[in-house]
């Protein structure tokens, strides 16, 4: 019984958050114009990326930094390579301090400050990695995420933080 109510509570919280994420609660604030990336499909389904890109990047960060794992799929450099167009004229290059920058477009809208670009390059650059490594396996080896479970986990984590 107790278990049942806990579950209902969780589902309700989840529903609330999902509603928050999808409904235009910030009516009035102009929706961000999100620049299109290269190709047809991101490395994970769009809904997964919207909610979990930070987890992928955080995981990859530690793997690369400490264990030297340099797969391309969840690498920040490759996010930038696909999502930030390179300007012919460097003076017209869009940087992270502009709301036209892919990352900043959403982060400005949601008022979530990121400090990635205090150190990392915010524009595409050659990584010097062999070309064949750059072929990104779409929906490749990573275990499929249970979206609902993941969302519930994040709701709980968010609840604790507040």
């Amino acid at each position, binding site marked *: 019984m107790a278990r049942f109510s806990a579950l209902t509570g969780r589902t309700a919280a989840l529903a609330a958050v999902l509603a928050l994420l999808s409904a235009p609660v910030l009516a009035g604030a102009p929706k961000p114009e999100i620049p299109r990336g290269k190709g047809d499909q991101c490395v994970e389904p769009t809904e997964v990326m919207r909610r979990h890109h930070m987890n992928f990047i955080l995981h990859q960060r530690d793997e690369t930094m400490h264990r030297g794992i340099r797969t391309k799929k969840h690498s920040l450099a490759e996010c930038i390579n696909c999502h930030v167009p390179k300007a012919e004229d460097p003076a017209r290059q869009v940087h992270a301090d502009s709301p036209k920058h892919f990352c900043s477009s959403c982060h400005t809208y949601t008022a979530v400050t990121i400090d990635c670009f205090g150190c990392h*390059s915010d524009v595409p650059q050659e990584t010097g*990695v062999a070309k064949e490594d750059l072929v990104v396996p779409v929906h490749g080896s990573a275990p499929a995420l249970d979206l609902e479970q993941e969302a519930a986990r994040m709701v709980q984590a968010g609840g604790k933080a507040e």
Partner: protein
Amino acid sequence: MSENRTTDEGRRQFLGGTLALGGIAVAPGVFLVNVAGAKPADQPVTDKVRWGLLVDTTRCADGCDACVRACQEENGWGGPDSNEVKSSDEQKAQWIRKVHLRNKQTGSTHSLPLMCQHCEHPPCADVCPTGASFRRADGIVLVDKHTCIGCRYCMMACPYKARSFIHEELHGQKVNAPRGKGTVESCTFCVHRVDNDREPACVEACAAEGRRALIFGDMKDPDSEISQRLKRLGVRQLRADLGLNPGVHYEGV
């Protein structure tokens, strides 16, 4: 004659084998690509290799700073268009510097590059309160700037003055060398290159100058050039008395 042929054949076989593994030889014995550590991108580094560097000071020329310039270009620090615009010269980052030694008695001089020595027992990592300074399994000592709080204990602890602190907001960093305000940095052995089976930028630049004063490789592979060279007389570590077992060695000082 027959002895010569055997040597030649042996060498050809060695070169052939290396090429088959993906190495590129620009001249006999000069490799742009280091095959010893060939590692798939999804595999972690292991302690089966330990990267090391030998500086042959007899080949290092006074006045040559090709290694320093190559490092600046590769990692985006210093140089004429340094992105540290507000810092004084003492404050600016210096990952690698040319040092001149002079024996006061004999007057003999040496010129050598000095950078992070990639200690086996790095005092920088010992004193770091957050674990940001660490040594990778393959012996490369790095700063994880995500967890560095900029306390600079490591700078005080390093006996080789190998580390720098970034005092100001930076722009235009290289994709392979993220660096920014409030964190400490030092030579990474060009870890992004090493993980892709390439040699550090300084080593490549020195070879391109035709000097080959820098030899990089796996010190745990008994057949690697560096392992062979480390056995020679006159090869030493700087301040070996400190017992840190640096990965960088010097010949001829």
